[in-house]
């Protein structure tokens, strides 16, 4: 009871111990009452000797905690005392006694007040504890109420200390400004302990050891298990998740993670979000209406025709068919197209589709320039190439002259590269439309170059994914002439030619036709809209494929839409190549390639593996009156077309590859070239080996040596003769 603190007192200034001794003295006097200065709402409980002991221990623990939170290290005594207090509670203190234990702990420092349990003293201590926090009474009240409803003794202990912790302002997210925590003890259960008299020495020692162990800071960080458990439990109490036991581990992990990754303060930018912010900035530019004129005038101008199609309507119809991008992406595409139309001199524009790639996708717009606009750029490109050819030819002629002077002329190879098939003119055939691509709405549109027949021929042989960067090289066998921009353009051309369809009758041939004979071979390549088109009922469109026609020209195996005889040389080539022409061994006959003419119905398309290359569907079978007819290509997965009434549209969203039932096998390299045939003129022999050479050399030396010996003998003979 009035005993002095049980453990030995090594360190000299122990204000807590003195305080406790004072407390114990006073407690013994005021057994049955709580100090009158204690505010209302506090229950008055009888005191016990054990209470006293525990109370003083608690006081010590509080004080110790306070000092700890202030950064002081705990002396063994203090630790012990703290632990004793907790242990005592663990041992089963009665609820009321605990209560009384508490208030007495907030005793003022004896030096300040001269002892006595007083509210102002409490207040000052509280203030000390909270570093100047104002809500003394609240704290006191909570202090009274806290220990009451506890499920487990440990729980309560941590709660109390948690209070101390929160008061210390050391942990950001665990500030005790959560009123629920302070004022809702009724949610927690009722704790009932039975009093036990804690035995002094061995138990204290055990408790002390356990506590010291818990307070060890981890090797990796400054966090101790004790502190972490406090954090965790506070978090659980703050969030009150359902069935916390089952998610205990996850909560544990999250609490640990949060300790090391505090939320950055608002003054600094979150580095992770930079990417998304940039994207949003770019797209914001799209939504700003261009031009600075007065509002009304601009509105009127804009309401008149614009080259940008009604993308939202198309997107709606495709959505009925189960195809297409989300509606906000469609809208962004619309605004991006509008931007494109403003930047370039465009007559008609259409959203062609989206090609997916590994690191990024392409949005493709199909445009037609106004008359006369586009050729300027084309001419520049052509001049460059022609200039290059001229210089090359010149270089060759000079080289030939030099060579003739040298006696040993390297035999010229008889192999000639196959003649280059000229690409089609702009606005015709495969190059009828111009294509612009961008990676995402908001980025600048890039124009794709025209496609050459060689590129189309090669594109048919390879199958590569697009990466999303236009300048990426296309590494393949046979080597593709160009980079990804060219490959993309070639695939777009193939897809357009194969899958752009329209209902029968929407387009018709123009009335002015030239000689049918001439044009019959080449195929008509112009069409115009039929003003009298009245639309085909949706059911008929779905039933029969003959109601749909291709309105893009088929690409011949040559790579062009109109056939060109590759052996017809242009004038320039004839001048340069006169000498070489004579060496030609006759012109090979090339057959003209003919493809299906324009506006052929889909029913004429070739089958793949006994299945039709097209699939037709009604968009919704539950309401056929308002459905849309949808046609899906089986040859190019991702190509769709819809038609309803007088409206129709095509779109492609996919990876840009043709369907093949087998896996793709890259073409094998060509056969190995034959060796030069050995004939009487040139015989191939193997070089002599080192041994043979050495043997020859030895033989020669030997022969020399014998020859010299013979000479010497002859000389000697002559000498002897001479002597004789």
């Amino acid at each position, binding site marked *: 009871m009035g005993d002095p603190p049980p453990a030995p007192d090594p360190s000299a200034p122990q204000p807590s111990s003195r305080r406790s001794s004072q407390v114990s003295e006073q407690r013994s006097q005021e057994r049955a009452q709580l100090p009158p200065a204690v505010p209302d709402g506090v229950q008055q409980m009888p005191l016990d000797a054990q209470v006293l002991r525990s109370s003083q221990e608690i006081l010590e623990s509080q004080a110790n905690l306070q000092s700890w939170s202030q950064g002081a290290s705990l002396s063994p005594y203090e630790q012990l005392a703290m632990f004793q207090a907790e242990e005592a509670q663990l041992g089963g203190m009665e609820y009321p006694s605990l209560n009384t234990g508490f208030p007495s702990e907030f005793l003022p420092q004896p030096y300040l007040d001269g002892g006595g349990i007083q509210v102002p003293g409490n207040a000052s201590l509280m203030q000390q504890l909270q570093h100047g926090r104002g809500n003394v009474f609240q704290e006191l009240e909570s202090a009274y109420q806290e220990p009451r409803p506890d499920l487990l003794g440990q729980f309560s202990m941590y709660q109390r200390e948690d209070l101390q912790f929160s008061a210390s302002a050391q942990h950001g997210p665990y500030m005790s400004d959560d009123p629920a925590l302070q004022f809702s003890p009724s949610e927690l259960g009722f704790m009932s302990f039975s009093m036990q008299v804690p035995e002094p020495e061995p138990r204290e020692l055990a408790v002390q050891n356990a506590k010291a162990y818990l307070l060890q800071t981890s090797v990796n960080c400054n966090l101790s298990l004790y502190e972490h458990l406090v954090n965790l439990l506070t978090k659980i109490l703050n969030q009150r*998740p359902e069935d916390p036991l*089952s*998610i205990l*581990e*996850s*909560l544990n992990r*999250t609490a640990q993670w949060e300790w090391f990754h505090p939320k950055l303060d608002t003054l600094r930018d979150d580095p*992770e*979000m930079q*990417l*998304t912010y940039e*994207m949003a900035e770019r797209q914001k530019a799209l939504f700003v209406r261009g031009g600075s004129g007065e509002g009304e005038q601009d509105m009127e101008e804009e309401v008149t025709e614009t080259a940008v199609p009604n993308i939202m309507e198309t997107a709606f119809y495709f*959505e*009925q*068919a*189960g*195809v*297409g*991008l*989300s509606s906000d*992406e469609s809208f962004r595409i619309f605004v991006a197209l509008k931007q494109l139309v403003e930047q370039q001199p465009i007559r008609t524009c259409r959203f062609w589709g*989206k090609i*997916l790639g*590994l*690191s*990024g*996708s392409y949005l493709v717009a199909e445009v037609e320039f106004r008359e006369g606009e586009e050729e300027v750029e084309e001419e520049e490109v052509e001049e460059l190439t022609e200039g290059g050819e001229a210089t090359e030819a010149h270089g060759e002629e000079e080289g030939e002259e030099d060579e003739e002077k040298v006696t040993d002329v390297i035999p010229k190879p008889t192999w000639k590269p196959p003649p280059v098939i000229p690409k089609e003119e702009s606005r015709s055939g495969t190059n009828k439309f111009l294509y612009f691509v961008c*990676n*995402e709405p908001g980025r600048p549109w890039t124009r794709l170059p025209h496609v050459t027949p060689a590129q189309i021929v090669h594109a048919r042989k390879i199958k590569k*994914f697009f990466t*999303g960067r236009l300048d990426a090289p296309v590494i393949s066998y046979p080597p593709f002439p160009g980079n990804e921009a060219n490959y993309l353009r070639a695939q777009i051309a193939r897809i357009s030619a194969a899958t752009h369809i329209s209902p029968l009758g929407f387009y018709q041939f123009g009335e002015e036709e030239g000689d049918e004979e001439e044009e019959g071979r080449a195929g008509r390549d112009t069409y115009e809209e039929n003003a009298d088109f009245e639309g085909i009922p949706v059911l008929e469109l779905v039933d029969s494929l003959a109601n749909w026609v291709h309105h893009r020209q088929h690409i011949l195996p040559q790579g062009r839409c109109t056939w060109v005889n590759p052996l017809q040389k242009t004038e320039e080539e004839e001048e340069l190549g006169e000498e070489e022409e004579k060496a030609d061994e006759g012109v090979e006959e090339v057959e003209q390639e003919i493809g299906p003419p324009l506006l052929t119905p889909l029913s004429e398309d070739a089958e793949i*593996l006994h*299945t*039709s290359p097209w*699939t037709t569907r009604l*968009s*919704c*079978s*539950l*309401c056929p009156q308002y459905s849309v007819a949808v046609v*899906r290509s*089986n040859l190019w997965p*991702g190509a769709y077309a819809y038609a309803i009434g007088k409206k129709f549209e095509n779109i492609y*969203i*996919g990876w840009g590859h043709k369907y093949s*039932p*087998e896996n793709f096998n890259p073409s094998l390299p060509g056969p190995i070239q034959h060796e030069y045939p050995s004939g009487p003129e040139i015989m191939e022999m193997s070089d002599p080996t080192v041994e043979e050479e050495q043997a020859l050399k030895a033989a020669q030396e030997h022969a020399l040596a014998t020859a010299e010996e013979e000479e010497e003998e002859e000389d000697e003979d002559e000498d002897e003769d001479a002597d004789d």
Partner: protein
Amino acid sequence: MDAESLLLSLELASGSGQGLSPDRRASLLTSLMLVKRDYRYDRVLFWGRILGLVADYYIAQGLSEDQLAPRKTLYSLNCMEWSLLPPATDEMMVQTSVVKGRFTGDPSHEYEHTELQKVNDGEKVFEEEVVVQIKEETRLVSIIDQIDKAVSVIPRGALFKTPFGPVHVNRTFEGLSLSQAKKLSSYFHFREPVELKNKTLLEKADLDPSLDFLDSLEHDIPKGCGWTALLGADF
């Protein structure tokens, strides 16, 4: 995608061009709820759609409490009436590997495949051409199983393994941060782990047994083009 968050997931996955028309979406929402009630699944996932010539198959999967237990697969032609599919076996896979081409869309359709089989007739051994009938349903089952094993992916932290064995959905999973989302190692295959035991001891020491109990995507072959993680609207 989970039946409960179907609409949101459809919006997010729309970048590839495949979507569902409004009538299908509405019917899915209602019918998946009913499936969940009738079969008493813990979670019902809308697996996807397989295109066929005449009709398309809509596939759903039902999961029990233990997320890694074998799932029940259901298919429907109109998103309203669902039928259970038999579980996949290895023989099915072997059998259907010879069928090529598209699905027809008729579940009772049978593919005919002629095989040369050696028939022992007493002492004679001769080869006979046997026509094997393979049902489209079998092919459907094995294709779904193959696709699941190859590409079913889950982010790290979404599931956790309890010490008793079953795998549960992690209710405290708040998603991956931006930097984590770009790394392939934060995604796992949602199937029985195959490569986990092949890891070295050093690697295993860094793993967290409650979260890292599945194969990661990092070591999939072919590297570089097997998987790419794209952020935002880039896909």
